[in-house]
């Protein structure tokens, strides 16, 4: 039997304290313990980016991290990006540019894009492509996702 351990972190701005099995993946804590199901699992092997969350502002595949590896860190999931009434400019841009089809890649794409723009508010189209190159999308062909991100960059909106 694998023992449990206390896990503490700030998730979407709120302090979280849980007792969890030591080998629990971060994605499972988010989805199964905290009900944050906006984080998606597409492969469980670090190959699709659907499970991307930001840890202290950096994008990580939450399927590859044990929760205990992010002890005391600051974690942002899609649910923390904005609320229904107050969308992040990237979310608005994704809607406006038709960057969402089935939507399964969308949370990961949005978070990777946020991490990019936070560091580099005016990336080139190439830089945007490199930033999202670890995130697979099977529906869109990526054009409109790149359009949506660059539109926010051009506006210079940053949050």
């Amino acid at each position, binding site marked *: 039997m694998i023992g449990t351990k206390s896990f503490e972190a700030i998730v979407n701005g709120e302090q979280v304290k849980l007792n969890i099995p030591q080998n629990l993946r971060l994605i499972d804590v988010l*989805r*199964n313990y905290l*009900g*944050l*199901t*906006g*984080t*998606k*699992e*597409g*492969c*469980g*092997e670090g190959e*699709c980016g*659907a499970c991307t969350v930001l840890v202290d502002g950096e994008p990580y595949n939450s399927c590859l991290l044990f929760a205990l590896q992010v002890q005391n860190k600051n974690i942002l*999931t*899609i*649910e923390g*990006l*904005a*609320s*229904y009434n107050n*969308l992040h400019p990237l*979310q608005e841009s*994704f*809607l*406006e540019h*038709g960057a*969402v*089809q*089935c*939507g*399964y*890649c*969308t*949370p990961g794409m*949005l978070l990777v894009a946020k991490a990019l723009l936070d560091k580099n508010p005016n990336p080139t189209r190439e830089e945007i492509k490199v930033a999202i190159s670890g995130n*697979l*999308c*099977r*529906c869109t062909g990526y054009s409109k996702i790149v359009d949506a991100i660059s539109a926010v960059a051009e506006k210079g909106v940053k949050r």
Partner: protein
Amino acid sequence: MTIGKSLPRYEGLGKVTGQAKFPADYYMPGMLYGKTLRTPLASAKILRLDTSKAESLRGVAKVVTAQDIPGENGHGVIFPDAPILVEDRVRSINDAIALVAAESEEIAEEALSLIKVEYEELPAVYDPREAMKEDSPLVWDKGNILYHLPIRKGDVEKGFREADVIVENKYSTQMVDHAFLQPEAALSYIDETGNLVLRVATQYVHWDRTEIARALNININQVRVVCATVGGAFGGREDMTLQLHCSLLTWLTKRPVKMVYSREESFKAHSKRHPIYMKYKTGCTKEGKLIALEAEFIGDAGAYSSWSPNILRKSAVHATGPYYVPNVKVDAYAVHTNNPFTGAMRGFGAAQPPIAYEAQMDLLAKELGLHPFTIRWRNAFEEGSETATGQILETSVGLKETLLATAKAYGWDVEKLY
């Protein structure tokens, strides 16, 4: 006026905020986790199946094998020839042997490892061209050729005699996966009236309902299928994967059951695009007018029928490409093998022929010294054109406009290329 306006997605808000619920995002108090035991062999006979150890594992609510299915043990969009759970004969690695419902995923996994199956390996065939031969191992006793459609129009022999140029070639396409980003998942439960409810990502809730009722031997009105948000499908969610398994586990335990596939299981469970072996012979006149076309398609149906007859029909009907050809001879076959079964995938049998017919067009053009645009333009369907099946295209034939738009975008001087 809203037609022609690029309005944002109806359900977009839920998708950009992470609130849209895909099937794996549903949870229920007291739910069990379902897992599937699959065969490692593509062609075998089950000699012995022992689930006793798994059943006695703590936390296992139910182990289900073929004997436990209350209704018909078969599913399929045309013929119900795919087993829900294999009774004795394994025909492909798609086959499921047993199901487990347990209090946790870990226990369910462990229970799978405790199920003992003894197989006797049987001869197998993995190439549809081999499978067509007299002496091939049989995937089905009735024979491996599932479907054959001939198309005969005009007189191809005469057409080839009149042709100034003829090109002849073989082409083949590979097996591919839909690779939708959301792996299969479902949650089923019994509602307050005693009926079964299934939340799943599918392409056709009403069909799933029919299949479930048939498997459980209950009335259609005792089943409700609700579509969750679908994470891409592209044809890969037309055949049943976990719909019947999840429903069975709930029906037999009367408890909510959740099933979620890993990416690997997703690859193994759903259909694939047909590999098709194609032979083409195409003839045209000096002016670049197509005059005769002969084509053969041998499609690998895998072990189960799924949509194979319809898909190879579609290949045959689209064999000429969007071009008028007066003399046509086509034969399309769907053939069973012990490969994973193939079914619907975006393009549905009309995707493979262009690999051949568009290559042939370029080769003919080259022989004649014509521009690739020219040979296409001279044969392109227009309103009033007749297809290989004798169908008159009466309205909305925008092919030439698409040719013009793309050619102009590349700066081709189309005036000189007609």
